[in-house]
């Protein structure tokens, strides 16, 4: 329940200039799309990004975007001559496109990662694997997020 004090603080906050900055930028969607493309270019460069060999696992429906189990597995023999060098995960609509980058080698045994991430919106998530021969492989997953990370927790 909102107390009288909390209401007054929130009302006062709405009037100060700092809160004006907190308003959603009208170009937000376009900016995030550009940031996603820039992050993708930074990883892949001019190489071709192909589908396959990577398996990205995410629950399709997410109640709470603050903690979402994510796992990436890449098909690779993981030998000295043929192994995965890096795994990257990117999102389209989070405030920052980068989620996680993993650097590994044949000593890892398998090219795998499991972690928990934050997702700000219903969106698609992209996992990219860079192989030792310089090729890039990817997989994407569409997720529906009902309670977003970042947005609803603006006031604490």
């Amino acid at each position, binding site marked *: 329940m909102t107390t009288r004090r909390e209401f007054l603080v929130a009302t006062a906050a709405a009037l100060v200039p700092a809160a004006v900055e907190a308003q959603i930028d009208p170009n937000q969607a376009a900016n995030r799309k550009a940031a996603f493309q820039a992050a993708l270019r930074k990883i892949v460069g001019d190489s071709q990004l192909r589908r396959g060999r990577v398996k990205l696992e995410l629950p399709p429906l997410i109640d709470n975007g603050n903690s979402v189990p994510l796992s990436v597995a890449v098909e690779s023999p993981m030998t000295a001559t043929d192994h995965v060098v890096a795994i990257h995960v990117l999102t389209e609509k989070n405030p920052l496109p980068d989620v996680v980058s993993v*650097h590994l080698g044949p000593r*890892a045994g398998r090219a*795998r990662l499991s972690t928990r991430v934050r997702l700000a919106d219903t969106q698609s998530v992209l996992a990219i694997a860079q192989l030792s021969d310089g090729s890039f492989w990817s997989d994407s997953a569409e997720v529906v997020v009902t309670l977003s990370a970042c947005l609803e927790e603006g006031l604490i």
Partner: protein
Amino acid sequence: MARAVVTFPAQAKRGEIIEIKTLAAHSMETGFRRTQTGELIPRDIIRRFSCTYNGTEVYRVDLHPAIAANPLIVFTTIATETGTLSFHWVGDNGYTATETAPIRVE
């Protein structure tokens, strides 16, 4: 003091692939949240995690604000020789955490 938990089998056969689970206690403040008065809460996250096996780095992760609080990282490595596995977390505001544990390989 920074707290972290690491679990993996204490002994393994030579050449076996072992799974390692790591968990660090950290709020992973994103830097996008605001207080009730509209001030931005500064970012405070773990930036990097690395695992070394007898001094050789086998796995390194760069973390971003999109990683949930108390970052969990699960990965694998090959049990090559008896020795120690050490785990290192580095973050904003001088955060560091280190864990080491022995492994016996037969």
